């Protein structure tokens, strides 16, 4: 039966189908697309438990090295926490004294990563919460370490999250030290790029990059990453610095979606 279909019909399908998929954006088609997305993500997540065990087994040597590094870091951080606690209480006293409004705490929805995009073109993942749990497109996604990305599509019980290093991701940011503003976007290389910053701006390797209050998608003050490389003026396009995301996007397992 299959071989009896004329070649012309096949070629017509070849020409029409991709364009139809690309440009025919009806709610009906969008619904089917979201359902497919949910089903595929849930089926792929079947591979997660054995995959995790294999990853643990393969990375045991690295894990031990990491453990030693983290133990040393832990002592430094404990000392830092004591100092920071003091600063927080001092900050609270000054806020009350000056009558400043404290930053609004945000409510979050915790979600588990069920699948990720196995392609070099994108950086996205699927989480196990969707519109039924109150997730909507455009909601910011964070982890304990900082900004992870944002929700781009929400099916009933799963959502697609575009990660911070995806080329189509961008967010308004500030240099934590110099308070210079800029635009951070993802790239195919896996790191992020900081652009639209002034030529004479003060930017150094290691500077913390946080979300700006002019960002409509993200609450202000969330850590995005650290500057890993500064380009001289007239470097690659208008990007002035490369930023290493604070979140290790390849190892995210749980996220918080800000409502």
């Amino acid at each position, binding site marked *: 039966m299959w071989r009896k279909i004329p070649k012309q019909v096949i070629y017509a399908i070849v020409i029409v189908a991709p364009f139809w998929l690309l440009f025919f954006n009806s709610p009906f088609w969008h619904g089917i697309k979201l359902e497919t997305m949910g089903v595929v993500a849930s089926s*792929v997540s079947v591979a997660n438990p054995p995959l995790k065990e294999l990853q643990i087994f393969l990375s045991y040597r690295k894990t031990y090295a990491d453990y030693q590094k983290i133990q040393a870091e832990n002592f430094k951080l404990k000392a830092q926490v004591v100092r920071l606690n003091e600063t927080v209480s001092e900050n609270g006293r000054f806020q009350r004294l000056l009558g400043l409004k404290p930053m609004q705490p945000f409510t979050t929805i915790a979600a588990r990563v069920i699948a990720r995009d196995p392609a070099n073109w994108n950086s996205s993942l699927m989480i196990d919460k969707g519109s039924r749990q109150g997730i909507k497109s455009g909601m910011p996604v964070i982890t304990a370490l900082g900004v992870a990305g944002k929700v781009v599509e929400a099916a009933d019980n799963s959502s697609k999250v575009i990660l911070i290093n995806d080329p189509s991701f961008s967010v308004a940011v500030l240099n934590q030290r110099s308070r210079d503003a800029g635009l951070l976007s993802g790239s195919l290389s896996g790191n992020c790029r900081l652009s639209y910053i002034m030529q004479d701006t003060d930017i150094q390797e290691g500077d913390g990059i946080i979300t700006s209050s002019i960002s409509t998608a993200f609450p202000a003050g969330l850590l995005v990453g650290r500057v890993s490389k500064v380009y001289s003026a007239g470097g690659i396009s208008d990007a002035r610095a490369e930023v290493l995301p604070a979140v290790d996007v390849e190892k995210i397992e749980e996220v918080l979606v800000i409502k």
Partner: protein
Amino acid sequence: MRQILIIPILCFLFLLLEYCLFSLFGRWGDPHLMLILVIFFNLYSGIRFSLLTALFGGILKDCFSTMPFGTHVFSYMVCACLSTYIRKNCYERGSSVSKLLMVFLLITAHTLIMAFLYKMVFEDIRWMDVLFSVWFPEVVASMVSALFVFERLRDAARILRF
């Protein structure tokens, strides 16, 4: 008819395999298995089955992608048509070198199509990133594994008679 049932199952299994390899070894250990599957069906069953594979494989890939839905379908379908052209003009039956050449050419074509679609959608694209972060890892990983995958697929075709 059997092939039509087997193609979606194989597409899903290959997506699962790509997902596992990507999670374990990152971009350097993740061959473009879906494109290899499209080439396999073109070589062993013809353009129609290859197009069907491109359609199913593309839809599965587009489910995860942040690009507009249909991007992968479009690229894979063009690659399926191109593989017919390459098969007719420079493919030598049974030759491993020409199979590898086909994989190389089609991954290059797929990368170029995706890059142009990217440029249309996001405007800004760095060609050095495309070359070193996308094309090079994909070509290396796919060419290393292509012959093995073709062999296993041929074994499967023999056993399952598709």
